[in-house]
């Protein structure tokens, strides 16, 4: 699953460690999500969405095109 985490983090000038602290996860977790090696759980995705004040679907993209309201 693609995501904009690296871009959103860079826009706020946060390091991976700083973002990890804000989410209360390990730096390895942030790195794994950013590089697409790990898809976060729904609670962690919601935490990210709240932190960046964005809807989850604006952060994560499952590559599925079409109407979101299908």
């Amino acid at each position, binding site marked *: 699953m693609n995501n904009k985490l690296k871009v959103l983090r860079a826009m706020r000038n946060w390091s991976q460690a700083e973002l990890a602290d804000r989410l209360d996860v390990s730096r390895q977790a942030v790195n*794994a999500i950013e590089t697409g090696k790990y898809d*976060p759980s729904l609670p962690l995705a919601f935490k990210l969405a709240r932190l960046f004040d964005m809807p989850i679907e604006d952060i994560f993209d499952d590559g599925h095109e079409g109407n979101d309201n299908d």
Partner: protein
Amino acid sequence: MTDADISKPRRRMSPRQKRYWTSLGLAGVIGGIVGGWMVADQANAPHSIGAIFSGALTPGFAMGASAAWVIGLAICMIIYHRAIDDHEEHAWLWASLAGWYAFIFPAPVWWVLHRAGMAPPAEAMILFVFSLVVNCIVYLWLKFR
């Protein structure tokens, strides 16, 4: 100290991180105590690699080490599983599954080969260590790749 340093939030361990390192530290201390006790228990035994792994142990050590392993491991695991994040839990679960497979695939094969006179008796500790090694490799790969 520069302005940039002052503006950076001071990084303290969160309660989750404290629980995490407590569980690992406690596991290390218990392992160190049991290992040291085992060496002391075999101080009068002949010094060889074979003696370390299969030499006779005193009943006192056997009971104490067993209790430390079971109770200590249970306490460490409870603290650990309350402390790990999503990503580590994911690594742990897949590593545990891989470790389980590393046990259930070879164990019956070894057992039937032995019963057919084609292999020595199945060694529980060899299977245990093999399972543990597979578990560790998969865990480290998923956590740090």
